[in-house]
């Protein structure tokens, strides 16, 4: 016998899954939303996404190479996803230096200070976005109106559906007339952050993720269901002040957050039961912030707050053990 045999305990085969494969699938699932954003916002969408991805990759490389002095982790693809998701959470006319700052916070403070992918308690892209939202509230909450294909920083801005919903709740019921139609809302013919405008494109991404078994249905479905139920109740109570729940589903970052941000592996719970509770929590917080908070959109804060609760959820929600009921 010539060759030295390897010895390990079982199992001796692997299904072939890798981190890279999962990350690649997520990137593919984000492509429809990216195409939608380019159609709606034109050049601005391209510039913002390219800058965000490039700076996230740069900071990841820089930090692993010079500060942590570890082998590069660029190839796992998580920095690309953070870059895309950060860009998808920004308006298309945001200055470049802000994107770079957001990327630094996302990768540096959101991920690498905790020891890299797998150890971060908060979704890195959302950490970057919330940092920008608090630091530059004016730039972060003025969104260009759609279809200014060549415009970037000079794009004309306008109110988004969520702004209008906020105004209605504030008593300006006349704003209801400015609300776009549900069809425009669903297809993405509205103002807003890059990636969040087209609910249709995001749902296509959801189907891809489910089909490739990257995520399970639990988190997105429970978030959307919770928001529908809560806003539906309020709508039934006072249809003049509170809009149809379908508006809430399609407006703002709800779809993007529920499908791509809340389902982030590292920062979501481990068990199906935990995922359901996590989704319900995000849904409730989102509705509260949307209706009663000072920001029009509550998705990012809701996800970050629930991220902080995940270790507790993991402790409480154990999977159903085999033979437990019989005990």
């Amino acid at each position: 016998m010539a060759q030295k045999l390897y010895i390990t305990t079982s199992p001796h085969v692997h299904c072939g899954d890798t981190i890279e494969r999962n990350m690649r699938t997520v990137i593919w699932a984000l492509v429809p939303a990216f195409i939608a954003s380019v159609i709606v916002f034109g050049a601005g969408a391209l510039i913002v996404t390219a800058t965000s991805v490039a700076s996230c990759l740069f900071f990841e490389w820089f930090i692993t190479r010079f500060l942590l002095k570890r082998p590069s982790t660029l190839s796992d693809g998580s920095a690309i996803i953070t870059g895309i998701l950060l860009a998808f959470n920004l308006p298309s006319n945001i200055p470049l230096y802000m994107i770079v700052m957001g990327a630094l916070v996302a990768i540096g403070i959101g991920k690498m200070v905790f020891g890299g992918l797998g150890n971060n308690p908060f979704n890195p892209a959302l950490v970057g976005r919330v940092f920008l939202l608090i630091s530059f509230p004016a730039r972060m909450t003025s969104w260009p109106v759609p279809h200014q294909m060549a415009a970037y920083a000079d794009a004309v801005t306008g109110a988004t559906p969520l702004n209008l919903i906020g105004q209605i709740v504030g008593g300006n019921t006349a704003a209801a007339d400015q609300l776009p139609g549900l069809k425009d809302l669903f297809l993405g013919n509205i103002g807003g952050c890059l990636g969040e405008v087209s609910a249709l494109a995001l749902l296509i991404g959801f189907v891809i993720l489910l089909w490739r078994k990257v995520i399970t249905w639990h988190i997105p479905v429970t978030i959307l269901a919770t928001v529908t139920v809560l806003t539906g109740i309020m709508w039934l109570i006072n249809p003049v002040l509170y809009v149809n729940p379908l508006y809430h589903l399609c407006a703002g970052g709800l779809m993007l957050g529920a499908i791509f941000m809340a389902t982030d592996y590292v920062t979501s719970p481990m068990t199906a039961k935990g995922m359901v509770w996590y989704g319900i929590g995000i849904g409730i917080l989102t509705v509260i912030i949307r209706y009663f908070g000072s920001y029009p959109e509550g998705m990012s804060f809701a996800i970050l707050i629930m991220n902080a609760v995940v270790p507790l959820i993991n402790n409480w929600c154990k999977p159903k053990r085999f033979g437990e009921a019989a005990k």
Partner: protein
Amino acid sequence: MSFLLTAVLVLGLTGLLLGLVLYAVSRKFKVEEDPRVGQITELLPGANCGGCGFPGCAAFAEACVKSESMDGIKCSVCKSEVMQQIAAITGHAVEVGVAKVAVVRCAGSCANRPRINLYDGAKSCAAAALMNGGETGCFFGCLGCGDCVRACKFDAIHMNPETGIPVVEQDKCTACGACAKACPRMIIELRNKNKLDRRVFVSCVNKDKGPVAKKACSVACIGCGKCVKACPFEAITLDSNLAYIDFEKCRLCRKCVDECPQHTIQAVNFPPKKMASPSESQQQVPASENSVEQLKAEI
């Protein structure tokens, strides 16, 4: 002006009230602690190594104060002077133990013990030892995954990348026994430190029959028993094909070292002998003044 006054008053009163509550609580729930526990804890090394058998240094200090005598309560890390100080605080007599040091009883380096398989599982000796005999034909020797290195709280044991076997830095070793406990093969033993750190020990734990052991490792103990006969102090015993030197009985005469056909018995930190032949000199241990580098080289 009035709103300023209101703010100051409200905040001041709240502060005062909370302060009173804190004071009351601290008085009511005050824990009476023997001041000696604190004194002893300060004397202890504070590494919480667990070598004494208590969960950490504070628990050890408490045990010192509470128990009737110091029998069986001993910090292996502290020097004997420190133990005397502790004894002075508690008022109990303390037995002065013999200084010990961890000794790695395996010399199966890559050269002496060729690898016949490749281990590819979790990097833990304990996990590897559960599964099978390891990468070599010797099922008793060092597995080389470094559980002992991770167990050491004093940075006193390291893997030698050339031999794949851990090396103890005798100056740093406090004989807490954590490495000996971590080793699934029970290769590491606490042995008397002796004068000038001189030690004679069988550097093998292989209990296989002679031919099997010899085939697996060129420096394995084959259980021939020559050392047993050579020892004038009856310090060496042979049990299931393996010689063992009782360090309480050994007088460091080194007769066994010359007798061992496998060069399994090692004598460390002795001055060089007058060499009988050049071939033997390679196995003989060079002189050393407690130098760690030399110790590494020889093990």
